[in-house]
């Protein structure tokens, strides 16, 4: 059993079965593409990002985290009309960061999860906009009000989804 120690507390490392590893990210991308056609407000959420953060924090492996983020992001990019790699790079960074923090912090309680999701959502946005504007020169604009609403909405939804996904975790 791989166990790391942080501030004297034991931090457990989890793993997931292959079906869960493949199907949960696919389902997240699929729902993200399908639900907004029926519930327009759902476009505010970013289910693939929440799944990336969850897997990264649970596995607590930086390589696994960044690869998961990279693959989910590229899949998400493929469904948009924008160049492939915008979400890929953003989620790679988030996956790496979330797993790095997962090693050092207790990310099992709801409050910590809320704040971490809020933080990583903002990081994700900043990386995304940075690349889109200054690397690819896409004509996209930033709306503080909308992004703030979106960040809090995703943080709330994240706490709920993490609780559901906790049931799929297996101790390593």
């Amino acid at each position, binding site marked *: 059993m791989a166990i790391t120690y942080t501030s004297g507390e034991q931090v457990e490392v989890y793993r997931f079965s292959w079906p869960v590893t493949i199907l949960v990210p696919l389902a997240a991308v*699929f729902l993200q*593409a*399908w639900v907004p*056609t029926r519930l327009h407000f759902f476009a*505010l959420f970013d289910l693939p990002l929440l799944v990336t953060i969850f897997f990264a924090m649970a596995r607590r492996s930086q390589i696994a985290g960044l690869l998961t983020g990279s693959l989910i992001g590229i899949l998400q990019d493929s*469904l948009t009309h924008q160049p492939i790699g*915008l979400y890929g790079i953003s989620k790679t960074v988030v996956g790496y960061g979330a797993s790095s923090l997962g090693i050092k912090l207790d990310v099992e309680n709801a409050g910590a999860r809320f704040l971490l999701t809020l933080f990583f959502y903002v990081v994700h946005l900043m990386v995304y906009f940075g690349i889109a504007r200054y690397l690819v020169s896409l004509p996209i604009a930033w709306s503080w009000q909308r992004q703030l609403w979106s960040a809090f909405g995703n943080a709330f939804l994240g706490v709920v989804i993490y609780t559901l996904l906790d049931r799929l975790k297996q101790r390593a």
Partner: protein
Amino acid sequence: METVLGRYKNLIVLTAVLFAQILGLAVQVRRTTESESSSLIRVWAVGAVTPFEKVLVWVQTSTGNIWHNYFYLRGVRAENRELKLEIERLRIEQVRMSQDADQAHRLQALLAFKEQFISQTMAAQVIGSSGSEQSRSVYIDKGEKNGIKTDMAVITADGVVGKVLHVYHSTALVLLVDDQSSGVGAILEKSRLQGILRGTPAGEVVLEKVMSDEAVPAGERVLTSGGDRIFPKGLPIGTVTRVSPGSELFLNIRVKPSANLGKLEEVLVVTTIDERQAATEQSVPVRAADILAERLPTVPPKAPDASNATPSTALPSGTKPVPGSSVPASAGKPVAKATDAAATPGLKPKSLTPAAANGASPGSPKPAVKTTTTDAPAAAGSSPARVPQKAVKPAVEPKPQPPAQDNPQ
């Protein structure tokens, strides 16, 4: 060396993955400037996700159809009655509109205007979206195998939706008009000011490039201008909701789209747009002298009772007196118009009936008009979607019938 690699393994992998993706981005950016082609990853991703979306939409539609068609039939009779009344009302309106359209056609022909007609559309169902706030686009269940091509206009009965951006084998990606990268040539219905319609990060639609010294009232309709060569001219886009001073010299005009972009279920893809010059009815040039001869009071044959006829009651040849209508007080008025008409080839003399020359109001009874109109396969609900195949064959009847009694066919 091994220790260093082991120590910084995570960072090295992170850097490698990021570098690979940035390289991929650079390649794509270069490729989009040359020729647009769908990458293999995109084709795979769309191929993996859209079948599930199609199945879900099919299940949802089937369930809804069973419920609505076999169980939930409350109020159907009343609705049917209302719809029949609506059809009657629309038929009457259609006659009036077709007459106006015919008149517009004649004028356009005189000015050698080229018109764009939606001659063929294809119905498609929305099966999914891009799932991103930064990419406002939807997937439809028609693709390359159905004849869909990039840059085809996508509309609903309410108005413009967007254009086809990427085409796959059995699906296509449609860029919505409220996306930040979209741009639609637009014109304000009354003031005829032109601008470019774009989306904002908040999902709103704004009309740009309208000078700030222009007066644009809220509530004015926005139509396609046809300048973008994608959307035919005259399709409804939306309504102006708010006007405020914008940056530099331009107004900031907010537009509410006519089509409900948040709840798209079925759309029409405009597969064929015909561009042709409005045709006149008479291809053979008419001499001015003939028109004048036709319009001038006829000389009655010498008959025993010929002295009873007075010039004031004489009518142009080929016409019969209209009961209740007064003959022009000055015979010179229609003649003067006829001269103008003769100077312009193609202008038909039918508009120069005595009633017209008298300045008959638009609401007055009009001559019966036979119109042959062929609907587009799926009419978009707007006037450009109706394709007048052959124009009007006027027949001045003895008793002009009110439009309500005319048969449009």
